[in-house]
């Protein structure tokens, strides 16, 4: 009965870093910049670990696609409680054209290969805000999807998932296997502790390339330009309420 979970983790620029646009305006500066695990992926890993502690899951495989440094992200997930890792190597130069569709194809192939019951992802990555991978993976596998999950429970037939949607909360039931994506309020992830970081060094991580999984890496999307938002202009001081009202009228905010 115990389930097998495949958790996807992405290495992204740390949320606290001030982003700078590259001079060629085709991307952002990543060299020498602090990176860490995508916060929604931390929540995904945490949920998988809790399911394992509740004995619903007996194996957690963490996968990350990226350059050599993606290993740090995998190790963090292992320190949080994942059992083993898969590093799908993408050379640094190809990272710009490596897109959600490719990730979905990789995850779909791995899900079949490893015979997992749940693919667990973060709802989106904070660098591209794409929010596509979970949905496309489910589609490729023809599995049900429970995305933006804020609560996940096991039922006899499969899973019951509460999703955060614009209007409130939606409860759905799915069969297994399924693809899930974690939203902010699913849980509060644990910190990796030193003893667990040390144990994680001994856990197995297998390396492979997208070609090994038969995934074609040709990009489908071309980034045309990346620009800063407009610089904030100085405000105007108004002398009194009449002045304010006059200015609002000038700018078309008041029809009176």
């Amino acid at each position, binding site marked *: 009965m115990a389930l097998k979970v495949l958790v996807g983790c992405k290495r992204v620029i740390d949320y*606290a870093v001030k982003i700078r646009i590259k001079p060629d305006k085709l991307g952002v500066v990543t060299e020498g910049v*602090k990176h*860490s*695990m995508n916060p929604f992926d931390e929540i995904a890993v945490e949920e998988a670990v809790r399911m394992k502690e509740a004995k619903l899951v007996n194996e957690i495989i963490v996968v990350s696609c990226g350059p050599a440094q993606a290993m*740090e992200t995998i190790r*963090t997930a292992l*320190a949080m409680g994942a059992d083993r890792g898969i590093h799908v190597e993408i050379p640094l130069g190809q990272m710009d054209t490596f897109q959600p569709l490719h990730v979905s194809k990789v995850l779909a192939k791995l899900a079949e290969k490893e015979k997992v019951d749940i693919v667990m992802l973060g709802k989106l990555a904070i660098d591209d805000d794409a929010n596509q991978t979970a949905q496309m993976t489910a589609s490729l596998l023809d599995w049900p999807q429970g995305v933006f999950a804020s609560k996940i429970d096991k039922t006899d037939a499969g899973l019951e998932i509460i999703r955060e949607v614009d209007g409130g909360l939606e409860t759905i039931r799915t069969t297994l296997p399924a693809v899930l994506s974690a939203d902010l309020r699913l*849980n*509060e*992830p*644990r*910190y*990796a*502790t*030193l*003893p*667990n*970081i040390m144990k994680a060094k001994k856990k197995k991580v297998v390396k492979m390339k997208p070609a090994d999984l038969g995934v074609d890496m040709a990009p489908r999307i071309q980034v045309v330009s990346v620009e800063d938002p407009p610089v904030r202009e100085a405000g105007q001081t108004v002398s009194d309420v009449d002045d304010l009202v006059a200015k609002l009228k000038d700018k078309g905010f008041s029809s009176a």
Partner: protein
Amino acid sequence: AVMRGVPQLLSRARLVRAGFSASEPVLAVQAGILQPDKFTQTFVQIRGLKSSKVIYQAPLTAVDIADSGKQLKQELEAIVGPGNVSSGESVVLQHGQDEGPHPGKSPDIVVFPSSTGEVSEVCKICTRHNVPIIPYGTGTGLEGGISAVEGGVCVNVSKNMNKILQIHQEDFSAVVQPGISREMLNQEMRADGLWFPVDPGADASVCGMCATGASGTNAVRYGTMKENCLNLEVVLADGRIIHTAGIGSRPKKSSAGYNLTSLFLGSEGTLGIITSATICLHAIPESVAAAVVGFPTVQNAVDTVVMTLQCSVPMARMELLDEVQMKACNEYSGLSYPETPHLFLEFHGSESEVESQTETVRDIAADNEGGEFQWAVQQEDRTKLWTARHRAYYADIALRPGCRSLTTDVCVPVSALPDLVTATKADIAENGLIGPMVGHVGDGNFHTMLLFDPADPEEFRKCKEVANKMARSAIALGGTCTGEHGVGQGKMALLEEQFGKDGIDVMRQIKGALDPQQLMNPGKVFSRN
């Protein structure tokens, strides 16, 4: 006082320190009169009035007094850049007021240096102009420590100096600049299994925490700033840069030379400006559990604490909230705790250690009439359980919308706590005040939030009276008038009581040696004489 031809910036500071009182009529003349001899004498001519007053000051450059204010600003701009010097109204206002109840005085100029070298040059300039220097971190203090009582230059070292310089994982230490706060540091290290546990409640600057000798809820297990600081880089008033434990030194212990680190820790900016701190890091605990338990009386709660400590349970957090505080928390956070004193507890360790610690304390609490023992392990559940404690301050302010709080801070030996708490509560009731109480009981340190209407000076006076009485009782019981917030302005008289004249005189002598012109944060900790 009518002062013409003399820029306000310098006249106020200079004339006050020269001994003129504010009500003394003075007319000072410009230029041409300054031929200071080598040592310090300057003679200000009074036009049309007879005066024999002679002012002794630090050596002046032979410069037109009327231009001195402008000159000071120009010299500062030359060091830090024109964009980093401001005397704008809102800027100086913000830099003179901290989060305490005392109205602060604005400095004349605020500078934002970007390096220790710039801080040093700024101090040299201020020394030459004989202008006070007030260091500024995050302005989250509670005792008016940044108020520029004699005007002067506020040196904001956190805006541009905000790097984590080094993290040494295997040595459990880090070197940070003043712009790094506790939360920023912990976010940076979160994936490395390390954390900096001194938590004063506000997201304060780590170097600011060094300056006030800060502490927090974790002190019972992890210590205060004094136990977690290995070395400080300090800029003195004359611009000299020193390293209190040795240049680049960060061993766990040392017997080399005088303990200058201890001297500057808690000196509240009166001896120098801290421009970087080497601090101790700790391992994030493998397992954390939180618990809450209520008691019929404060005595029961404190007895539980004393017995727990005597059983050598390595408690990470032990917080006491009295019944007034619990009521406030219930109302503010929509909780339903019984309105009796409660202990909020946290246990750190391996899973088995935490389990056994929790069991031990559960039993001790039950032996002391403890009520229901609620506990949690999961992160969100622990957060929920501790909500009452985390939001205590806001819950207090919500008791009387529009009020402000005089937050007291005394620390006594743990055995003396129940008596002091009981006496204090009686005093608060007698004066008709509202004063919820929160205590770091493991350290014998507690705070009362005495609420007052800012428009009612009589109520504020009563609060001050209660606070002073509490501090005096604490001193008499073998404690201290301030456990963690510092002396600032409000407790200077109490410091004299605690140390006696000789003790304070030694402090004065040390200050006189390091800051002969009395420029470093004047009007704080102790008076000039």
